[in-house]
């Protein structure tokens, strides 16, 4: 316990986050339903989930960028121990872009099509640092060099449309790095790119991250991509975290039937039938009252506790956390009291 107290606050700590919106009949819909996690300095965390699972929304909430009509209804978001929920836009702006760098899926929409790439990068620097233009420009060239853009001084004068998708995403990574952030958040950074370019951009991102020794939250639907890059993973389903743990543990001994289903869904050899999780994810409006995964779950098979009670995210004997009433049947009993994660 004393070790717990002297430990430095995590870089980012999200506690009991609930994001709501108003449904068509005026009812409150919980899009993010009680999500908690931490990210430490220098750590790479993957958030994996399907579309609508709430993985992107969680990070938009962290950055104070929730779209109109959505709000943080409960919970706290601690940045270096300080709650940033409800901060004024001006204060948030000081964190975004300086402490937190963002990389989105589509680099074309993240860049201004009417301005030269170099000038956009210089602006990102000068928004947060009082440096002369000349210094900013030199820094831009260094940044572009770091993300593997050759002949940076010349190419910084190009407009976004003159660059390929992969090159543009490098520019966005350079922009995210511009102010030495402590945390990079990358939301499906390679999904819009061709396969061969994906691998290059991920290498660039990892190199950039290592150079800054910043933390990285990698949001993706691709379990393989997350596993290749993240040391720890959070698996989201229907607005909740259903499993979290080290990448290795999640891959070798998943402790939630949804995670298990995702791993089995990876395509096997030809002639073998693909494993498919039956059914569809529920819309947040119609989320079942107990476990959200219960109607599709092979482990539950309609057992009443799955229908009636929402399972809590509990520490398992192998060190992962999972939210399943019957995880012990997957060989993952609840960890004995007093054991450390």
């Amino acid at each position, binding site marked *: 316990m004393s070790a717990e107290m002297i430990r430095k606050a995590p870089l980012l700590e999200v506690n009991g986050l609930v994001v709501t919106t108003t449904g068509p009949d005026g009812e409150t819909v919980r899009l993010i339903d009680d999500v908690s996690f931490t990210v430490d300095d220098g750590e790479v965390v993957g958030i994996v989930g*399907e*579309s609508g699972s709430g993985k992107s929304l969680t990070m938009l909430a962290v950055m104070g960028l929730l779209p109109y009509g959505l709000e943080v209804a409960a919970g706290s978001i601690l940045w270096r121990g300080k709650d940033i929920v409800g901060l004024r836009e001006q204060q948030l702006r000081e964190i975004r872009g300086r402490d937190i760098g963002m990389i989105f899926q589509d680099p074309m929409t993240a860049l201004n099509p009417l301005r030269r790439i170099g000038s956009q990068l210089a602006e990102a620097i000068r928004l947060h640092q009082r440096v002369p233009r000349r210094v900013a420009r030199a820094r831009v060239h260094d940044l572009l060099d770091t993300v593997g853009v050759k002949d940076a001084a010349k190419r910084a004068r190009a407009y976004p449309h003159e660059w390929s998708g992969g090159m543009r995403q490098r520019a966005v990574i350079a922009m995210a790095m511009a102010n030495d952030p402590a945390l990079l958040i990358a939301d499906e950074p390679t999904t819009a790119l*061709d*396969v*061969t*370019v*994906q*691998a290059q951009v991920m290498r660039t991102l990892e190199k950039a991250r290592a150079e800054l020794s910043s933390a990285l939250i990698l949001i993706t*639907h*691709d*379990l*393989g*991509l997350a*596993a*290749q890059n993240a040391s720890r993973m959070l698996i989201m389903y229907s607005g909740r975290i259903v499993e979290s743990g080290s*990448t*290795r543990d999640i*891959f*070798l001994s998943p402790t939630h039937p949804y995670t298990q*289903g*995702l791993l089995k*869904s*990876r*395509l*096997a*050899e*030809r002639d073998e*039938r*693909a*494993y*498919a*999780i*039956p059914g*569809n*994810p529920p819309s947040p409006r119609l989320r079942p009252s107990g476990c959200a995964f219960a109607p599709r779950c092979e482990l539950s098979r309609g057992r009443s506790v799955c229908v009636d009670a929402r399972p809590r995210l509990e520490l398992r004997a192998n060190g992962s956390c999972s939210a399943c009433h019957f995880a012990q049947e997957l060989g993952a009993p609840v960890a004995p009291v007093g054991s450390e994660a």
Partner: protein
Amino acid sequence: MSDSRSDEPLIEVADLHVTYGRRGAVRRGRGVQAVRGVSLALSAGRTLGLVGESGCGKSTLIRSLFGLSPVASGTIRAFGQDITRIPPRRRREFGGRMQMVFQDPYSALDPRMTVHEIVAEPLRITGRYDRRAIDELLDRVGVSAEMAARRPGEFSGGQRQRVGIARALALNPKVLVLDEPVSALDVSIQAQILNLLDDLQKDLGLSYLFVSHDLSVIRHVADEVVVMQAGRFVEEGTIEQVFDHPEHPYTRTLLDSIPHVDFV
């Protein structure tokens, strides 16, 4: 088919060139050569995988099968007939035998029509509307009668793709051209659709030309595969040949790009 011998491929493309540009530019060889001399054959009941990255010409190639690309030279034969330059009116006569399934089930379905109407449309156009046949078809692809009365806006991606497949099957085609049919779907749903396509192929004896950028999908579904780069096929062969013994450096690059996880 009376007009094709059983051992003859259903679709046969020979030395196809497609060039975009104004007519004069094309004649002087200054157009954009999107497809540069490709040949392929698709036999009954088989699946041919077509792999390539954006801009490689794969969309141009499949569009040319439907008469939607400006063919500069080469021939396209379908069901024993040369269809390279036949007029649109005559294309319709056999058009029902080759149908397309699109990537994005969100934009491929008319949001104002019910699912039943969407699937019925091809039959209505050809004057062969039959309520029972449509009900059976929807049942076959896993769309319930209750869902058939609703509009696709209320459907998930996987359900929409089932509807897209049903619509493509309405005219009893022999060949489906599938353009990235599972790329927009979530992992847990992808497998459902791939299994459905597998069942349909076995039950109806369909042939698939399956376009995807995802090599793990191609390895799962295809018998043979062609790898396209910059308008040409750089590699072709059976799945085993191409995946286990890739010859072209580009194929190797593609294979190396698949994220893999090693825990040792």
